[in-house]
């Protein structure tokens, strides 16, 4: 493997120092002259109600109130928070049934926390006090929480655009039979194949409505200035698409909308598309010339910003006696929440990742997505894959157990690899390091030794081991558009500025992109500066989602670097009067002629003369080649180079209390090439914390009126530092570099969350011999399952 001078090195993250000193300025830290405070008035009392009347009379009396903004005072244009419509061909959006059903301030509240009106005041306190004094009269509507309730003929209708409350499904035009998957070449469906299976395992799994819980509350500052330009400081994951969405919503040309990226205090998908930007901008437009800050409270986060999809997925999987995977057939009934937003996106990916993992002869998954009065789901690290992982990884282990097969060997034998379809039909895996991941993970956890030991365990605390594998994606192509534009500009001192709009969610993305640029240039890190993101100067990029930063932006910057170096060679060739092919790069930016070392020049001179180019007073000849070198790197990659991973978990189950403790955990990840290894490890470790949460503790709970019961840290429980296993290993597997990834790199971000889901669930199964098909696997559920089974089945 090539040795690199920057890539793969454990350098400090570029933004680390400003963060350890507290000097990093997030959107909420920005101070501006004349700053006003906006407050979104939300409906806390009801999950479903008509807004009959809004009375601002008491609110207006609060000292410091500047303006009360009702639903009629802002644009009436409905919108959709997502960028889905932008990133698929128009015809697809129509077939999928994309709709815009959300208003800035809504006349009908469709979930608790829906925005009703707004307040602008001189202080945060005045804004909040006035918000408390707004009197909203509601007419409560019947609550719809379950799919069954949404389907009823007399159910209240969420939008005339979707009669019957079916927000989305897999449309027949793209998905024959409403299913994603494939039949065998003879046309036989999975259901028909099941008859030939020796064993069919089948169950319904509940997938929880997990929340991203980024630490920085959603915060925005917006200003509508004297030139009629609307500027929004936001920690969005997608500055450029949000610029587009805001422009469309407020009917402004892009020249009059500016998005400035503030450092992001965590995202994990919750800052994909728009959340509070429309409200901040609408309030700012109500007070032209004044910046308005809107900061969500922590408890608003759970009710007003999108979560993960939840619902019930029924999966049947058929096997031959020897373990041959015959077919898999699934139905997913999904709860959309009050608005369309991501529609069929996450459930589609559940199906796609189910398709991408194992060599089923035939596969089908159908999904029905029902409106209900929960917070809408949107994007969350993993985007549909946790649901697939929770169900399928458990069913595989159940089948292996019933067939007397080793679940490790089964996975080794039947996982997809090079030449097979990835998660999308027709796109083939170009690399696969999963076997290596399985080897390393099982070895690190001492699989064979512990497995034997634990099989004999007796008593009230039983231990088990579990393996889970997954495959994911690098970028969203071919489901969504993949495009990034990078501008690379050579300064007169021969350093470069890179302008790219892809955000860094704190993952180290910008450090890694800078490393790749420096490596591709062959120059030191200090000679490269990545500027992100001000929509006024940067080109288009989709933003940080779908684990695309390293893969897609990395490809674009290396391409730009190559172009920039070529331009330097071309100019040197002219100057030295040789052919470009005759030139090569030496040390310290020196360019020399391969057949005559006497002919050489330094790139610094070319850079300087590209700007400071004068006519020689003696000869009248122009010195150097004038014109600053600016190149672009464009990438429309037509692949998604999926990474794989294998995770092993070791758990202890207290069979008297149902408590599960994760004792050790290993995640071996097929990374191709780790550009910035500490960041990759950080992704794996951090992803694990959320994966443990998915499988063990996290879900949003609602009461019978649809009101959220746990919109705070008191009752939304995530694993803390003392809950996490002390023995945790992140193994970076670099044995399968991807031919399309920059330096062979594949993604690691979203993929990290799935590791614990299958492995922990299977470890619990190994420990007590019972599978728990509802996540999170709480002690209550474990104990109830043990009771139901009349004890453990060991």
């Amino acid at each position, binding site marked *: 493997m090539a040795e690199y001078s920057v890539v793969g090195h454990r350098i400090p993250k570029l933004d680390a120092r400003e963060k350890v000193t507290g000097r990093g300025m997030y959107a909420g830290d920005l101070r501006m002259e004349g700053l006003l405070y906006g407050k979104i008035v939300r409906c806390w009392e009801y999950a479903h109600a008509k807004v009959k009347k809004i009375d601002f009379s008491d609110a207006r009396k609060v000292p410091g109130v500047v303006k009360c903004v009702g639903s009629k005072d802002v644009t009436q244009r409905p919108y959709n928070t997502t960028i889905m419509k932008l990133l698929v061909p128009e015809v697809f959006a129509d077939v999928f049934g994309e709709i815009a059903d959300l208003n800035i301030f809504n006349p009908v509240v469709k979930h608790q926390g829906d925005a009703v009106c707004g307040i602008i005041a001189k202080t945060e306190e005045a804004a909040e006090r006035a918000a408390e004094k707004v009197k909203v009269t509601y007419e409560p509507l019947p609550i719809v929480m379950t799919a069954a309730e949404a389907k009823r003929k007399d159910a209240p209708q969420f939008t005339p655009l979707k009669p019957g409350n079916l927000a989305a499904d897999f449309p027949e035009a793209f998905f024959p039979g409403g299913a994603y998957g494939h039949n065998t070449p003879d046309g036989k469906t999975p259901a028909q194949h099941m008859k030939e299976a020796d064993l069919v395992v089948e169950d319904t799994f509940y997938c929880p409505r997990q929340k991203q819980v980024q630490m920085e509350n959603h915060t925005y500052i917006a200003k509508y200035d004297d030139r009629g330009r609307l500027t929004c400081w936001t920690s969005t994951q997608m500055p450029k698409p949000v610029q587009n969405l805001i422009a469309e919503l407020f009917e402004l040309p892009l020249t009059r909308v500016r998005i400035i990226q503030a450092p992001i205090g965590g995202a994990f998908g919750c800052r994909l598309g728009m959340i509070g930007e429309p409200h901040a901008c609408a309030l700012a437009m109500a007070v032209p010339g004044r910046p308005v800050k809107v900061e969500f*409270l922590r408890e608003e986060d759970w009710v007003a910003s999108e979560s993960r999809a939840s619902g019930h997925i029924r999966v049947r999987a058929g096997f031959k006696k020897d373990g041959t995977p015959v077919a898999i057939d699934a139905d997913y009934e999904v709860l959309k929440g009050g608005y369309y937003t991501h529609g069929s996106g996450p459930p589609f990916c559940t199906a796609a990742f189910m398709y991408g993992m194992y060599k089923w002869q035939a596969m089908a998954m159908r999904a029905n997505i029902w409106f209900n009065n929960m917070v809408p789901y949107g994007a969350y690290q993993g985007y549909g894959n946790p649901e697939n992982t929770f169900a399928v990884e458990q069913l595989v282990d159940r089948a292996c157990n019933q067939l007397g097969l080793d679940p490790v060997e089964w996975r080794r034998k039947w996982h997809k690899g090079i030449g097979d379809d990835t998660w999308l039909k027709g796109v083939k895996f170009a690399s696969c390091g999963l076997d290596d991941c399985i080897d390393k993970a099982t070895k690190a956890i001492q699989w064979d030794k512990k497995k034997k030991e634990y099989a004999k365990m007796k008593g009230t605390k039983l231990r088990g081991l579990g393996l889970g594998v997954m495959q994911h994606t690098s970028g969203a192509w071919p489901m969504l558009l993949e495009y990034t534009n990078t501008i690379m500009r050579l300064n007169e001192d021969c350093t470069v500025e890179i302008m790219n709009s892809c955000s860094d969610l704190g993952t180290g993305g910008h450090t890694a992109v800078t490393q790749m640029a420096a490596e591709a240039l062959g120059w030191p890190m200090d000679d490269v500066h990545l500027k992100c993101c001000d929509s006024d100067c940067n080109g288009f990029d989709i933003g940080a989602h779908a684990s695309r930063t390293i893969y897609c932006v990395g490809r674009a910057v290396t391409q730009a670097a190559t172009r920039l170096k070529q331009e330097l060679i071309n100019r040197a060739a002219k100057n030295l009067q040789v052919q470009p092919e005759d030139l090569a790069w030496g040390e310290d930016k020196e360019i020399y002629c391969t057949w005559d070392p006497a002919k050489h020049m330094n790139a610094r001179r070319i850079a300087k003369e590209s700007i400071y180019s004068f006519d020689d007073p003696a000869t009248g000849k122009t010195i150097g080649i004038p014109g600053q070198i600016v190149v672009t790197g464009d990438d429309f990659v037509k692949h998604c180079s999926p990474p794989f991973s294998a995770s092993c978990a070791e758990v202890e189950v207290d069979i008297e209390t149902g408590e599960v403790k994760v004792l050790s955990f290993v995640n071996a990840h097929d990374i191709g090439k780790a550009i910035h290894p500490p960041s990759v490890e950080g992704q794996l470790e951090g992803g694990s914390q959320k994966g443990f949460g998915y499988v063990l503790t996290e879900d949003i709970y609602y009461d019978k009126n649809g009101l959220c019961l746990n919109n705070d840290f008191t009752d939304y429980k995530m694993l803390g530092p003392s809950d996490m296993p002390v023995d945790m290993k992140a193994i970076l597997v670099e044995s399968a570099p991807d031919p399309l990834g920059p330096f062979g790199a594949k993604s690691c971000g979203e993929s990290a969350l799935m590791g614990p889901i299958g492995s922990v669930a299977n470890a619990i199964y190994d420990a007590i011999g019972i599978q728990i098909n509802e996540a999170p696997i*709480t002690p209550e559920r474990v104990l109830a399952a043990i009771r139901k089974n009349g004890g453990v089945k060991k």
Partner: protein
Amino acid sequence: MSNSRILPEFELLVPQSVSEAVDMAAQYGDKAAVLAGGTDLLIMLQKGSATSEYVIAMGEIEGLDYIKYGKADGLRIGALTTITRMVDNNTVKKNYPALWQACKQHSAPQIRNIATTLGNVMRASPSGDCSCALLALGAAVMLESKNGRREVPMDDFFINYGKTARKVDEIAVEIVIPPVQNGVVSSFMRMTRTNFDLSKVNVAVQLDLSGKTCNEARIAVGAVAPTTIRIKKAEALLKGVKINDALLEKIASVVSKEIKPIDDVRSTAEYRRDVSAVLVRRAIKACL
């Protein structure tokens, strides 16, 4: 539901002595809330689950931050003694393991750094960890008013959810725990969703094992009724007998029957019933 993380306005009263605080309590009665550590009160004010025109902040009163132990007097804990102070105190650790465990497992370090042990009792939450341990230890709360002091045993202290025997003109100044006797042991256990959490069930047990049999037992269980409660039927079973596994099973089943847990976001009634029994059994075993 709160719409603000800024507290509502109130008149702040900052007594410099207990007698000043007592005067203020007498003057403002139920219009005033008492703030010691404040970690519960500030949240309640913010959420609107408590309202108060006046807040009597005890923080500047000298001489209320103490842990004193005497063979005759037992343990005395001042009103401003933080939970951290309890965790760092060897006397507490050695003599009152149930209370020490409760303090150690209670909340996060920076909350323990300001929250007071007495404050946990005054909150009268059925899930209060210190409350649970103190009830098992047979502690009492010292209340002071213009009429003087009175000592209310923990057994009579909790009236209902969030309601204590404190009268509005009284200020709680001290926790009193009887001195330890030879052979008296205690333990505390709790069940939570994650380590840093409110208890979904907590259990504290004190046993007098000075003789050949168990002379006396006190069992307190929290988060299974509107207040922390004692399981007197189970205590009676322990009295004067030798503890064995069969007895523990019997006690466990009594515990399940005696409690009245509810379903809430933290757990289910059924689970609490099952697990309280397990925890009581384990807590007793931990004393043996």
